[in-house]
């Protein structure tokens, strides 16, 4: 399902490397509904033993019939609304026929010519500016089972069979691997903000195939496209695209034609390899699903859903810039990360300066964060920032305070006392440390005396180090200058 055309050959070959890249993304998003798409089985199978979230319907037993999950339809419509897409009144489901061991019925219930959502777009950062990437469509279908290949055979787990899956197809408007990554991150931010999917690529909740082709710069026709599958992270999407662009560029430079094919990304080797050529492409024999009546999306229903739309990442970004005075970079990063956005807003509500809060979250907190499970109370972060502002602790001590703050959940004030990290601003108390530093760094002292201005910063850093960050840097510098004068 793609709009890219297949151009046979290029009449004029450009100078080496002078190509324009055209990228389109096809994403599959598992919806976070309670039950599966067409039966009552729980859709969240994470961690469940194989074939325990199954019933006659999602196993495709003889005689069973599908009943549509209305919430899955609503989630798809909400996504369409968030993308400012066109939502037609009449839509239907179709059967996509192909035999495969993970497909219980021999066909997948999907949508062919009348998707729930048509068009739509997202705005992504592109260098210093932004670009709008349009979507072709968003449709709803059922997920398949999962195969695991073992020596001597394959195992199949149908827990995933029938989980609602939203397919989102972009127009071929993406120009660089970085833009592809930005597009995916924006999609994920929107999906998470809507609460329709956790969209975790590593967990397979967001899966992405890319189509990539090259054409001589200035050429209107599209080049031959190659589809790349098996991309399990933002990083692999970017790496695979970089590899594929390089591969195609080299092939074109050698005068070799690009074959229209499906290639698989091998993460460990960092290369793509041929999986299926165009000649082997399936004829899916789509036809309307006779077991499901057409779906009519009444406008009143759509309006109700529109009322439910939360603040979306783009609006949030604008608000962060306008209300909090954040720069574009910080606003963009925070607004597309739901966890960070929440922490940011709560920290500001707790009295912290927005720019300082953003800085902390973007840098020190981000470094400690492995996933969204990280527990950091916004009021603690706000207090930490306030302690620094008040001069009660130094910035360096504050950084040291962050890991135990997260680990113990104790209030910053208490931890400062417990760990003895209060800032020392009394010059008498710092004198020993400053003298020790001067003795231990004779060459820096020589440099300073020779008029090298930066030497004082080095010496100050050494004082901070020897006091485990507790020294008030201003007082330490003043003392250094006095003792070296």
């Amino acid at each position, binding site marked *: 399902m793609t709009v890219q055309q297949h151009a046979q050959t290029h009449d004029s070959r450009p100078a080496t490397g002078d190509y324009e890249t055209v990228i389109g993304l096809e994403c599959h998003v598992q919806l976070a509904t309670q039950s599966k798409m067409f039966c009552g089985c729980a859709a969240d199978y994470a961690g469940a033993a194989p074939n325990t979230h199954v019933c006659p319907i999602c196993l495709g037993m*003889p005689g*069973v019939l599908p009943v549509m999950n209305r919430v899955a339809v609503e989630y798809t419509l909400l996504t369409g609304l968030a993308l400012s897409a066109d939502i037609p009144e009449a839509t239907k489901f179709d059967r996509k026929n192909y035999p495969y061991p993970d497909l219980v019925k021999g066909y997948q219930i999907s949508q062919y010519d009348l998707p729930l959502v048509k068009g739509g777009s997202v705005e992504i950062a592109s260098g210093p500016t932004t670009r709008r990437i349009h979507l072709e469509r968003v449709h709803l279908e059922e997920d398949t089972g999962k195969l695991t290949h073992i020596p001597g055979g394959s195992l199949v787990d149908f827990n995933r069979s029938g989980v609602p899956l939203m397919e989102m197809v972009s127009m071929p408007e993406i120009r660089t691997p970085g833009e592809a990554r930005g597009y995916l991150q924006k999609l994920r931010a929107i999906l998470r903000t809507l609460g329709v999917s956790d969209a975790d690529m590593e967990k397979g909740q967001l899966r992405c195939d890319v189509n990539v082709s090259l054409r001589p710069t200035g050429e209107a026709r599209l080049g031959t496209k190659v589809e790349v599958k098996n991309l399990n992270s933002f990083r692999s999407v970017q790496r695979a695209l970089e590899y594929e662009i390089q591969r195609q560029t080299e092939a074109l430079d050698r005068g070799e034609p690009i074959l229209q094919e499906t290639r698989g990304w091998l993460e460990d080797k960092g290369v793509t390899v041929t999986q299926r050529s165009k000649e082997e492409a399936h004829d899916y024999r789509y036809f309307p699903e006779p*077991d499901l009546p057409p779906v009519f999306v009444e406008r009143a229903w759509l309006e109700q859903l529109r009322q439910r739309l939360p603040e979306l990442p783009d609006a949030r970004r604008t608000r962060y810039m306008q209300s909090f005075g954040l720069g574009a970079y910080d606003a963009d990063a925070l607004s597309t990360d739901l966890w960070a956005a929440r922490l940011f807003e709560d920290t500001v509500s707790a009295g912290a300066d927005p720019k300082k809060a953003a800085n902390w979250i973007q840098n020190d907190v981000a470094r400690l964060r492995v996933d969204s499970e990280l527990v950091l109370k916004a009021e603690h972060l706000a207090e930490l920032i306030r302690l620094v502002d008040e001069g009660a602790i130094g910035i360096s001590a504050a950084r040291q305070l962050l890991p135990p703050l997260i680990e113990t959940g104790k209030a910053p004030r208490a931890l400062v006392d417990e760990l003895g990290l209060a800032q020392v601003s009394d010059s008498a108390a710092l004198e020993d440390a400053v003298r020790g530093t001067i003795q231990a760094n004779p060459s820096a002292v020589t440099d300073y005396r020779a008029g090298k201005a930066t030497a004082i910063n080095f010496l100050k850093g050494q004082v901070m180090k020897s006091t485990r960050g507790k020294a008030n840097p201003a007082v330490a510098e003043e003392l250094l200058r006095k003792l070296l004068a």
Partner: protein
Amino acid sequence: MDPLTSRSIRELRKLLDQRDVSALEVARAHLERIEALDESTVRSLLTVTRDVAEEQARRADERLANGDTQPLLGIPMILKDVLTTRGIRTTAGSKILENFVPIEDATITRRLAEAGTVLLGKANMDEFAMGSSTENSAYFPTRNPWDLDRVPGGSSGGSAAAVGAEFAPFALGTDTGGSIRQPGALCGVVGFKPTYGRVSRYGLIAFASSLDQIGPFTRSVEDCALVMNAIAGHDPCDSTSLQASVPDYTAALREVSLKGVRLALPREYFSVEGMEPAVDASVKASIAHLESLGANLGEVSLPHTQYGLATYYLIAPAECSANLARYDGVKYGLSVREPGAGLWDVYERSRGAGFGREVKRRIILGTYALSSGYYDAYYLKAQKVRTLIKQDFDAVFEKFDAVVGPTSPNVAFPLGAKTQDPLAMYLNDLFTIPTSLAGLPGVSVPAGMVDGLPVGLQIIGKALDESTVLRIAHAFEQSTEWHKLRSPVAQRVVSRESRAGSPI
């Protein structure tokens, strides 16, 4: 006294309510008759469920003792083997499901169990309901109770023959293009196809999903109405089942006059090529009889009738090509696994060995009709013609209450007569297919005899207007003697049956 097995549902109801007999006695009388006669005569059943029947009969007796008065409580019945039954092998007449034991009941199975019916067995059928003679059963052909050398019709031939042989007062069949009405006509019993969506398809092993519909075989229209009362109605498990409220179908039968009822006679259903003249004449006589009951007749045209067969044989195979894709020999059913064979070998060999010729023919036809480059010319065009056929009926129903005509162009034919000629076989459904394509209710009632074989009169109604169809059928039946004729097999007496029945 007539044996219990020749009684109607209404008569059995009276006997059970008065405690003249127990449900177990009724069940055993039927089981004994089946066990004594079925093998050597019609061969209507693939599975006899004696244990289930006796258990259900005992429970029905308990419910009777507790004052339960459900209309079908303790009434024995037979299900076509395309309807799933938990713990009871369900084959759809196919080798590929030879050892398939469902883990849940079809909605119809559950509803009938809740109504207190007693399951005697599973009826033979054309494989996956594809056929008009029950000769496409992968197990054995069923024979006609009026002449054992002839077919009972199909695909629900086992159900029709069982009711005609007095093995059960009612049986359930499925109708996709005539598979209830045509065997009903050929076996001389009432065969009713409700409006598409009136009866839940959940648990009906699909042939063509947009056409399949479950309906009853009975020996009287009143019994048909009683069964319809129990099985009709919305099912949340079937998205195509209709939300419409279900009337009491027996209420419609109180009106015996047909005064003012407007009946349409489609020109295309009479004196056409391929129709047996004696059948044509018999049906015309029946229609004259309807007129004598007060009905107003009018000739109409259903101009797209001639395209019905071609339309059906594109849509039904297209749907079946997808519906039957799940039978791959891996998860259940027949699995042909040779040493060293890969997965695709298992698929191909299991399907090759598990499906019969007609099923393969239709899978191939349907796959072709849906293929890239042919879809528009075949499947899409067929869907457009289907709309035209519906519109033909819509136009007629603006001025008429029902359409009447023959059910089948011929009476029961000898076994083997049409097996080598699929087209000749398909022509059997000429008059039933348009109704199926339009999703309308239709009944076949016994309405004549030609050379000792039954002829059926078909009555077709508006969508959801089963009541009018049943009312006309009942008025006809009650003023004629055809339904009282008993087939030779029905007349065979089983010696033990005359006994009062085994003690409870």
